[in-house]
């Protein structure tokens, strides 16, 4: 790690207020922070902990509806809280840079990448256009982007997500800033892509001796990146310590609970044996395409009652498309889907009410999966009313029963709107809506990936309990192998629309693997701070580039 030199950023007793319900409420309660040149500080915490707000405040910036109400932010001897807005603007971009979570949303789609890259250096008259472009290409090369001389002249939608995130990091380096703030730069990426972005970020921070604040909720990631880790909860600091010390002996209970979060694991169930045993859903050699692009190629697997089949793979591997074929949203071009031995009509419009009832779906984003203008009682009540014809008090008692099942108090939540719930509660409502139809097969599409780890674990436990209670079969779509490890009975690994390997979970997690499964498994960050370094040595840089560009 870089040698510690003088203090670059000194934040004392930072207080930030947010405006809601017509009053100012303090959301960051006095946080201190010291960052030396060339040092990387990891900010970690659940959503709502104030990580991003503090990160932005380090640039002297507060989001709309927020204001810095107290404390001091001293950047290289300059007090940012009293600096004028125009001076701050000159500072941002040139001496402090910011890398946002979603590069795809942060790049302007109407301009070429290199034009956006060179905008700041030209604006601040650090470089001329030609120099800036040459410098950009050098940075692209350092970040191991393919075709560094050419890639900048593409538009943002023409490069992949991982490449875009690396281009964003290059852009942040354009003016050689003293401080970069990384706000969850890899959260939206696949594990295999995440590695090369992490490696690139670490390289460039080391090479230029840049200080960085790395914001994330993923401990294993922050362990690779940071020299020091600071744990935040609800706008307050829980503890701060050098990375190794923090990982080995966390002091506070909250930190320990974060560390222990992936402890939930249940034993693997075997397929029911005997002549009567028949899969509840059987996918037989389906192929599907969007327009002329073939997205599924000969996908087959079986799901038995009471069991969980996890479908894993990177984005674009056809996991969600398989789910769309099973639900009937995308009729397969060939092959068939059997439900309890009977073939299902390919289009959902042709299926009977009972067939529709049996297959339910839980979505990734609870925000878009629940209609914000409908009350909880109607969201859950509608399937019960629609399929079973329940009315009046019978319907109400059914909704109460369902709310009890998902561990939400009926009297409190019955007539609320979805916007009045937290992320985890919304996901529970999504589960209740699926249950209300009284199904035998539920497709869970990345149900925990948008949630904090503690909340996600609660959801997994709930799903597990419901499975035992109602003998449900789950198809669990995910790219998170930790989730697979905790809940799956069988695993299907998909790549580029094909099933590359499938079998019982314990078998899949013990070598030998299919090379692709191996790549996926080894790409999951571990809590060891030297994990990334040793993995990169093991693989060599070329292979990482390849894996990312598939």
């Amino acid at each position, binding site marked *: 790690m870089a040698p510690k030199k003088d203090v670059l950023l000194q934040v004392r007793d930072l207080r930030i207020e947010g405006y809601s319900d017509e009053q100012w409420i303090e959301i960051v309660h006095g946080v201190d922070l010291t960052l030396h040149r060339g040092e990387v500080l990891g900010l970690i915490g659940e959503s709502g902990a104030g990580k991003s707000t503090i990160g932005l405040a380090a640039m002297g910036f507060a989001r709309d509806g927020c204001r810095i109400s107290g404390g001091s932010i001293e950047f290289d001897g300059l007090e940012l809280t009293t600096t004028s807005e125009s001076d701050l603007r000159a500072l941002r971009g040139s001496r402090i840079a910011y890398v946002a979570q979603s590069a795809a949303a942060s790049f302007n789609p109407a301009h070429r990448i290199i034009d956006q890259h060179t905008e700041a250096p030209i604006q601040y008259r650090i470089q001329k256009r030609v120099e800036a472009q040459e410098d950009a290409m050098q940075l692209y090369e350092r970040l191991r982007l393919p075709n560094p001389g050419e890639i900048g002249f593409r538009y943002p939608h023409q490069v992949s997500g991982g490449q875009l995130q690396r281009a964003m990091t290059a852009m942040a380096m354009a003016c050689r800033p003293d401080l970069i703030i990384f706000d969850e730069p890899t959260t939206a990426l696949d594990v295999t892509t995440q590695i090369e972005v992490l490696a690139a970020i670490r390289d460039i921070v080391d090479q230029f001796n840049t200080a960085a604040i790395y914001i994330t909720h993923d401990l294993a990631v922050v362990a690779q990146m940071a020299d020091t880790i600071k744990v935040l909860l609800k706008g307050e600091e829980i503890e701060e310590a050098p990375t190794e010390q923090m990982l080995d002996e966390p002091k506070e209970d909250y930190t320990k609970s974060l560390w222990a979060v992936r402890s939930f694991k249940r034993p693997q169930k075997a397929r029911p044996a005997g002549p009567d045993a028949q899969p509840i859903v059987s996918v037989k050699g389906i192929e599907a395409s969007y327009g002329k692009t073939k997205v599924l190629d000969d996908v087959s697997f079986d799901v038995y009652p009471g069991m969980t089949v996890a479908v894993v793979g990177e984005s674009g591997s056809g996991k969600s498309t398989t789910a769309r074929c099973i639900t009937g*949203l995308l009729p397969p071009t060939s092959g068939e889907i059997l439900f309890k031995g009977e073939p299902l009509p390919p289009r*959902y419009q042709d299926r009977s*009410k009972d067939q529709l009832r049996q297959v339910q779906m839980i*979505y990734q984003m609870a925000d878009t999966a629940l209609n914000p203008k409908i009350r909880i009682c109607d969201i859950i009540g509608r399937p019960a009313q629609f399929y079973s014809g329940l009315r009046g008090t019978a319907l109400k008692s059914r909704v109460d029963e369902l709310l009890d099942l998902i561990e939400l108090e009926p009297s409190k939540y019955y007539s609320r709107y979805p916007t009045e719930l937290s992320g985890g509660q919304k996901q529970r409502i999504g589960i209740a809506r699926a249950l209300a139809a009284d199904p035998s097969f539920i497709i869970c599409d990345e149900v925990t990936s948008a949630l904090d780890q503690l909340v996600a674990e609660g959801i997994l436990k709930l799903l597990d309990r419901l499975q035992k209670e109602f003998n449900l079969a789950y198809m669990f779509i995910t790219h998170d192998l930790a989730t697979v490890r905790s809940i799956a009975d069988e695993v299907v690994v998909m790549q580029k629309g094909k099933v590359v390997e499938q079998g019982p979970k314990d078998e899949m997690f013990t070598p030998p693997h299919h090379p692709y499964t191996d790549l996926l498994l080894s790409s999951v960050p571990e809590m060891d701070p030297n994990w990334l370094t040793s993995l990169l040595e093991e693989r060599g840089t070329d292979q990482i580039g390849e894996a990312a560009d598939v």
Partner: protein
Amino acid sequence: MSNFVIVYYALLIAASCLAAYFKKREIFILVFTLTLVSFFMGIIGGQSALRFITTAAGLLAVAAGMSYAFREFLILITPEGVAKELRTAPLTAAFGMFVICTYAIAGIFAPIIAPFGEAQVISSAFAPADETMLLGADQLGRDMFSRIIYGARNTVGLALLATMLAFIMGALAGLLAATKGGWFDQFLGRFADVIMSIPSLIFALLMLSIFGTNLIVIVIVIAVIYSPRVFRLTRAVAGNVVVMDYIEAAKLRGEGTWYLIRKEILPNSTAPLIAEFGLEFCFVFLLIAGLSFLGLGVQPPTADWGSMVRENATLISFGELTPLIPAAAIALLTVAVNFVVDWMLFRSSGLKEM
């Protein structure tokens, strides 16, 4: 220096000093600006200018006070959910609601409020105002005030009917197009393009001269002219809602199109539609006034603000304000509706005011 001037300045300066002393920044700036303006206007225009400023400031204050009281009144009489929304309404919106409310009452109770019938000739042409005729007489000797009151009923009622019809047609088509998609969407879209490509006034003139100028034809023609705009907006708004996961969930449940539109899509598109309703209402209102001015809208002797402006237009060359009164009625309603619409747009955009 009359007593009026002395008392006027004394009051204003005392109020400014009090505001400054108690650190009420906004009140101080308001009052002191008024003091300064009065001071300079007083030097330039003398006592009459001063009286004019006093009247204008007084009217504004009365309007603001009325709006404030009206909003508090509405908050008290409405149920909890609506009252919560009303508390966020700015004074301009409250003023708009008050004006709309006044127009509605004038329209509904026109025969009771108006002292004379709308076609009743009671005086000589262009007779000046007296105690029986508050606003004087028009070009045939009919009472101007009574005709304004009846005009509220005819003009506003007609505009409301036409706008509602346009919305029912446009919104339904837009929702169907967004839900069904495919060739149905294409067909409706191109059909809307065809209607929009014809200049609206020429289209109205053509249709009215073919089918005659009765009220039903006017309403239908105007609804047809304005429905493509509503269609486009609804389709765009609903298009964003249709791609949501909850719509997919409802479709997979096996729900029909009508349920999807009514329960899932419409509640999520109402805010921009209501705002658009207010805007379209103003345009329809102006189109009807324009048509009446051209003699193709509401036919005499029915009172209508647009035709009243036209009929009394000659009087303006004699420096009389009479023809401007119906015009002012139109303007006031348009402004009032837009105040309310602005507030709704602001709410639906989800912006936070600092």
